[in-house]
């Protein structure tokens, strides 16, 4: 009971900040850039403060939106700094205590609140523009679900008509931009007479605009949602394959003796476009390739940007080396310099990946350790940066496991991830010439996009004795072999001496 009270009290103060009259949205514009695996949603909130010293602005996402939004970033329009976003978590568990205290905010599962801390508090009637950028994954699905080799690729995207907000909104509109003008269908919303008298939706070229809708009451509550919110479907043509990586395993091995950072990715690639109807005909595929009219849902190959300065790149799968690829390496770039050159890998799978097909492979390379490591002058610790993943353009990684293998004998291991990992663990990895094994950091991530390809920073100490472990171990091993030979040659085990 006591805990309940404190919880509700605490929450009350939190929710008081989000009360309906601290802000007003003078305008909300949501732009949806449709894609294959990734859909980019940019929502601009023109905000006017109704209270002095308003510091926290709250945005609401529907549960579905929250689930698909794998990347979320808020900033004040025109400013480079990213604002701090605090997630209140799934609201349902807060909902019960609040029903008593905050009568006008009844939260049920279905709405997710995020608190954005403004860089400076807004005065009364001051206004600002907040841009919320999200990248949605798994938000589209192929429609029709099966397509033959010649068919175009259609995708469907589902979203909600209205942008939810705990505040009153003067006007809002949603622009949905398809990558090609051929939009097969889109939903025309009904019962929006409360908000607009014009056509609820207009289409021009590849852009479909819902709104403007005026005078929307605070909408992040069940009552509003059940009354006004409705789903909107867009069915559009997508001319590129839909890439999905159900599983990615990255192992980064840091070697001080070799001055080497080895990165190896085990990638399980899947074409998440419409499944192939019927069967694959090589003849048709070759004809299409010959006339350069490849079907949109075929992955004939990938072009990857690997870091500059890599060596010994390898690409194999369970059946051995795949020799159909080309790599153009760029010279090494000094650390922290802006790399404008990449090693370009034209990767060709063993077979063209049709809709619904899988292909798993291993890709790895060595890179100079100096390009990604440095020594902290004050503490003498090594700092190494390892990218979470090397992006495959326009693809989503469902599950990623990143393993960072530190040199043998590394101590004081600390790491910082650019965004929170699902889980992290420390273990020991034993490999060539090891005696006690190497400390290993294992991190798990979910739903990675190109935006997530940021470095993980790892700092550690390696004492001199740990450095010397290897040469000593090798020397001892060789010495014992020689000593053994030396002794056996001089020992006579014969019973009858001749």
């Amino acid at each position, binding site marked *: 009971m006591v805990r309940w009270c404190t919880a509700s009290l605490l929450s009350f103060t939190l929710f008081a900040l989000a009360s309906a009259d601290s802000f007003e949205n003078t305008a909300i514009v949501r732009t949806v850039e449709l894609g294959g695996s990734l859909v980019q949603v940019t929502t601009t909130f023109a905000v006017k403060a109704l209270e002095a010293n308003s510091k926290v602005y709250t945005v609401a996402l529907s549960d579905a939106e929250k689930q698909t939004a794998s990347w979320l970033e808020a900033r004040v329009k025109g400013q480079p700094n990213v604002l701090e976003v605090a997630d209140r978590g799934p609201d349902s568990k807060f909902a019960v205590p609040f029903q008593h205290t905050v009568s006008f905010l009844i939260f049920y599962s279905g709405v997710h609140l995020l608190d954005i801390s403004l860089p400076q508090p807004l005065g009364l009637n001051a206004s600002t523009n907040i841009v919320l950028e999200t990248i949605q994954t798994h938000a589209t699905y192929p429609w029709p679900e099966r397509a033959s080799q010649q068919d175009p690729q259609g995708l469907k995207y589902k979203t909600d008509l209205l942008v939810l907000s705990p505040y009153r909104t003067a006007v809002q509109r949603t622009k949905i931009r398809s990558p090609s003008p051929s939009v097969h269908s889109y939903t025309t919303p009904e019962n929006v007479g409360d908000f607009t008298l014009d056509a609820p939706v207009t289409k021009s070229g590849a852009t479909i605009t819902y709104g403007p809708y005026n005078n929307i009451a605070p909408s992040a509550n069940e009552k509003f949602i059940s009354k006004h919110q409705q789903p909107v479907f867009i069915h559009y043509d997508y001319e590129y394959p839909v890439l999905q990586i159900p599983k990615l395993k990255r192992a980064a091995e840091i070697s001080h003796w070799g001055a080497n950072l080895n990165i190896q990715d085990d990638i399980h690639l899947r074409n998440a476009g419409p499944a192939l109807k019927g069967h694959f005909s090589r*003849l048709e595929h070759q004809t299409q390739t010959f006339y350069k009219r490849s079907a949109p849902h075929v992955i004939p190959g990938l072009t990857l940007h690997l870091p500059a300065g890599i060596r010994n790149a390898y690409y194999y799968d369970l059946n051995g*080396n795949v020799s159909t690829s080309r790599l153009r390496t760029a010279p090494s770039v000094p650390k922290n310099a802006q790399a404008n050159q990449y090693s370009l890998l034209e990767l060709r799978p063993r077979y063209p990946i049709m809709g619904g097909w899988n292909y798993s492979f291993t890709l790895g390379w060595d890179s100079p350790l100096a390009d990604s490591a440095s020594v902290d002058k004050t503490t003498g610790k090594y700092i190494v940066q390892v990218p979470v993943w090397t992006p495959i353009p326009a693809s989503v990684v469902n599950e990623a496991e990143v393993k960072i293998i530190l040199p043998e004998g590394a101590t004081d291991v600390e790491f910082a991830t650019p965004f929170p990992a699902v889980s992290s663990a420390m273990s020991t990895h034993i490999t060539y010439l090891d005696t006690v094994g190497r400390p290993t950091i294992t991190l798990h991530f979910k739903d990675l996009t190109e935006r997530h390809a940021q470095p993980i920073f790892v700092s550690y100490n390696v004492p001199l004795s740990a450095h010397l472990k290897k040469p000593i171990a090798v020397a001892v091993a060789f010495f014992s072999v020689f000593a053994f030979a030396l002794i056996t040659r001089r020992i006579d085990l014969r019973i009858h001496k001749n």
Partner: protein
Amino acid sequence: MPTAFPLPSDLSPATVTNTASLLRIVALSLISGAAIASRLFAVINFESIIHEFDPWFNYRATRVLASKGFYEFWNWFDPTAWYPLGRVVGGTVYPGLMATSGVIYNFLHALNLPVDIRNICVMLAPGFSALTAWATYMFTKEMKDESAGLLAAAFIGIVPGYISRSVAGSYDNEAIAIFLLMFTFFCWIKALKLGSALFGTLAAVFYFYMVAAWGGYVFITNMIPLHGLVLILMGRFSSRLYVAYSSWYAIGTLSSMQVPFVGFQPVSTSEHMAALGVFGLLQIVAFTQLVRSHVSSKQFQDLLFLALITVGLLGFVGVVGLTYKGVIAPWTGRFYSLWDTGYAKKHIPIIASVSEHQPTAWPSFFMDLQFLIFVFPAGVVLCFHQLRDEHVFVIIYAVMASYFRRRHAVAFSSLLDTYLDAAEPADAAAEESTSETSATNGASGAAATTATSSGSKKAKKGPPPAGTTALTDLVAVKKGDKPKGIFGLDTRLAIVMNAFGMLAFFVFHCTWATSNAYSSPSVVLASTNPDGSQHIIDDFREAYYWLRQNTPETAVVMSWWDYGYQIAGMADRPTLVDNNTWNNTHIATVGKAMSSTEEVAYPILRKHDVDYVLVIFGGLLGYSGDDINKFLWMVRIAQGVWPEEIQEPNYFTPQGEYRIDDHASPTMKNSLMYKMSYYRFAELFGGGPAQDRVRQQQVPKVGPTLDYLDEAYTTENWIVRIYEVRKEDLLGRDLKSANAFAKGKKRKRSKPVSRRRPIV
């Protein structure tokens, strides 16, 4: 030890021994290095990959052993092979190879060296070739001396005949078996020389290892008794022979019976009877000797001799009788085919269809052995010079090997080399009388071993000192022989150059043959781009990987048995038949399905739960090892079981030609194999003449149609084509009329379409 140069007198004997020993170790390491390195062409030109067909099974079995442990492997029942029968792998396999890799794997991992099991398998054969070189050295050392041993080691290290079966990636039983063969023989010779039970037991242990590793152990099983028998017949019976043979046979046979695949064969099959017989004979002879030493009566001895022969004859008759009555299994067909090349063709098509079982063509002997083939007879002759017990062994080996040359090309070559050791003396014999200047030889560093060996050879024969001052100190052993021979420097030089040239060309030939002929993995094909760079044709792995990634794990794949192991290894899917050709009927069933019409084949496919059918088609690229070229074997094997349904002549044109073009026989055109190979092939040429590049014939413009199968996948160069077997029509129609309906064809009521003709 004999030396070519007089040693400085101020050296202690220990220094000399140690230096010689060091030099030998260095030479042997260099030879091992050369042996390993020359087998790496396959890895350098291609990659670290398992080659061909059988190695893929061994590799798969090894992976099971490495991941699940020996016990699991021992009891492994593989339900995915020979679907739906399955295969008891643990009991039908020679586990020596896998166990060896497993031990190496676990040993390395225990040392924190996490080497991939594939790399261990790939590098096993080269590694063991180094051991073979060492074993050959030991063996030849027993025959002659260390120098000849080094030369023999060098020969066996790089001779193409052996390399052909032991390049990196050729992960087959022969990879370790040749070493075991050599080492068993070494132990046997050593045991015989010393009369040592220890070496006899060692020979038995390695014999056991050999039994566990390769079916070719029968060669040892017959070779050693033969040697023993010949020695007895030559009147060379000795207690040494008795000890060596008895210890080898008793322990070797008992231990060999521990291998499940061998079981009771050593006491029940004819192949093993010779060893048993000689064992018995030895006991009798030894007993006779014992009695004679006590009785010492000439007549009694004669009597015993008679009794001996009687008993021997009785034993032989007994064995024959038992064989006849079926107590002892008669010799298997495979064994007959070893003796009589024609046997297989006449009686067992499935054996004849294996390329390994074909007799070796004569040119390949030169390819594999080069000049060794010429020095071989000379070596045999030289063995007669100094006919000790072990030389008898080599002579028997020679006779046997030249007879068994077909299958035992490898053994033959290795034998050859053992010859070599002896043959090199032959070589040297010709030239040694010239007292060659080993100094010149030695100067050319490449042939360091040659130098030592030829030098020592000369030393052995003790040729007189040459006249020139430079050569006066050449002779090591002076026995006060009268100087005779050729003393002119020019003559000597000519001989030396000749010998050196032969050796040098041998090295070149070996390198060339290895890199060009024996280093292709055959899973991967190489061609050359217009700019000279290598182009890899990787259709097999493409297709197998597609199967592995995009079909359900339980999808049953039917293909001709050649590809069974590869499908199991690379695609990880159940197969109907594979390279372990134990069930002729099952193979014939696949043959029948491939060679009959769709209507006949479809029930067979459905009854065997076949989901995919895989065929190899080389017509686009000119890959001649494809299924259409193998097709007649399928027909023949199927005919063996269903003679009234499948008849080979039906697949030929009336003129007796094997054609695939417009003139092909209707049976041929309607066969499933033909249809699957050429399905939509002509369309690739866009209306132009469609050429089959293997058979150099024009494919009919209107290609075959398929009603019961769907094309599921075709690789980039069309080498592998995979078809999915369609399920029964949901409305209960037969698939042909269902297809016709789907295409909008009207069913002719008045004149029903003949079932025989494909609908166009």
